[in-house]
């Protein structure tokens, strides 16, 4: 499972304040905490600062990478902000994200074409947010073909089928899960990725629903997640679910997690 640590996001109050006051130490500490907890990529998002996003996103990348030896997931719908951040990024970044929305797609594609960047492909188009598995597949198909034709190998693509809140439609959970399985079987070697917590929007005790949903998604093939890696219970659930899904040879990761105390919750 590829874990993208989601904590360095300007819409979280502590991070927004840290960015505004240029509190580099707070950013560095968060990045090292996330890495320590098992993140593979450190997501950076400066989205709340209209007009200043490129500048702030660049600052975040610099400070994260001064703190940890890990790549960033550069999180913005704005190709200009992404480009600014890429200019200072070291190593192979993840782009979070491209979608089929025409303007976003056309502006971002030239930036990522022919690179070895990892790319999150969000199932969203100008026609709106997909609700059914078929709608998700129709968007995924166009996105994946477009990316492959532009030199991004399948193995570098992380399709995000788009989680919608189950509080607003009882079928939103299962339509997402079916899409994960179909994407993973239709495009062999591809990955799936999602920001999962939207599933529990509008409901109480969200962390329970998030954890159960994660376990179900892992069973269907999900192999990437944008989450808070400091959520020890979520991380423990992922380790157990991957072993149960047949993706942990001889349960070695499970045992390693046990010996590292990851199940002492």
């Amino acid at each position: 499972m590829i874990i993208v640590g989601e904590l360095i996001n300007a819409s979280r109050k502590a991070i927004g304040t840290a960015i505004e006051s240029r509190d580099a130490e707070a950013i560095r500490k968060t990045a090292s905490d996330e890495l320590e907890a098992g993140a593979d990529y450190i997501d950076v998002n400066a989205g709340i600062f209209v007009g200043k996003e490129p500048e702030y996103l660049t600052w975040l990348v610099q400070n994260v990478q001064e703190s940890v030896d890990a790549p960033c997931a550069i999180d913005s719908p704005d190709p200009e902000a992404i480009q600014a951040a890429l200019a200072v990024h070291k190593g192979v970044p993840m782009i979070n994200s491209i979608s089929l929305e025409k303007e976003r797609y056309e502006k971002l594609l030239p930036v990522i074409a022919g690179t070895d960047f990892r790319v999150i492909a969000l199932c969203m188009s100008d026609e709106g947010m997909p609700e059914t598995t078929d709608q998700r597949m129709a968007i995924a198909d166009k996105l994946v073909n477009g990316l492959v034709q532009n030199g991004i190998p399948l193995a570098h693509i992380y399709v995000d089928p788009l989680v919608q809140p189950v509080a607003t439609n009882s079928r939103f959970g299962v339509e997402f899960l079916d899409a994960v399985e179909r994407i993973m079987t239709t495009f062999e070697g591809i990955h799936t990725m999602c920001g999962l917590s939207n599933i529990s929007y509008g409901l109480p005790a969200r962390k329970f629903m998030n954890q159960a949903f994660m376990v179900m998604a892992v069973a269907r093939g999900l192999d990437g997640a944008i989450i808070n890696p400091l959520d020890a219970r979520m991380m423990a659930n992922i380790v157990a679910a991957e072993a149960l899904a047949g993706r942990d040879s001889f349960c070695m990761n499970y045992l390693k997690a046990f010996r590292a105390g990851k199940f002492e919750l």
Partner: protein
Amino acid sequence: MAIQDIYQAILGFDEEKVKQLTRAEIDAGTDIDSILNEGMIAAMDEVGKQFSEGILFVPEMLMAAQAMKGGLAMLKPLLTGDAALSKGTIVIGTVKGDLHDIGKNLVSMMMEGAGYTVVDLGPDVDAEKFVRAAKEHNADVVALSALLTTTMPAMEATIAALKEAALPVKTIIGGAPVTQAFADQISADGYSDDAPGGVQLVRTLIGK
């Protein structure tokens, strides 16, 4: 008291019961306005209040609204046109470039539950379309939603276009990244951080 039973049936999310009770009240000759205001709108106000307090949750708000709509549909033919039933007209949509509609749909639903006529333009709506719809439907309020920081400037552009057109409408805004400070900055007439709050805001702004 039977109007009270309609109120209770909405709080019990029981659409069939709401319909039965509404039919019985209509047949008994009860005042339609009383059924609407004391039975239905009062119930939805209570649902909204409990939602804001964290007692009820989104799926329950949806079920209550569906139950109310079942009864409301039976009242509508008894009044001369929609206008007689409506406390005002609200044009609502998510601004240009933004495809999020879940929050906006909840607001639409609660506005209908409060007795307003709602013209929902959907997501990704440009300023011109808001202006046209506001004119065409004689809107009292234009409600704008944005869920992305990148589309918040489209709120400002839309409000500017409405002012430019000199329409007698109030503007209200909402959405996860939106704040009261931003509303003040772009001269919106109001902001709310949840759907029931939006209903209260509209009541204050148009005085009915």
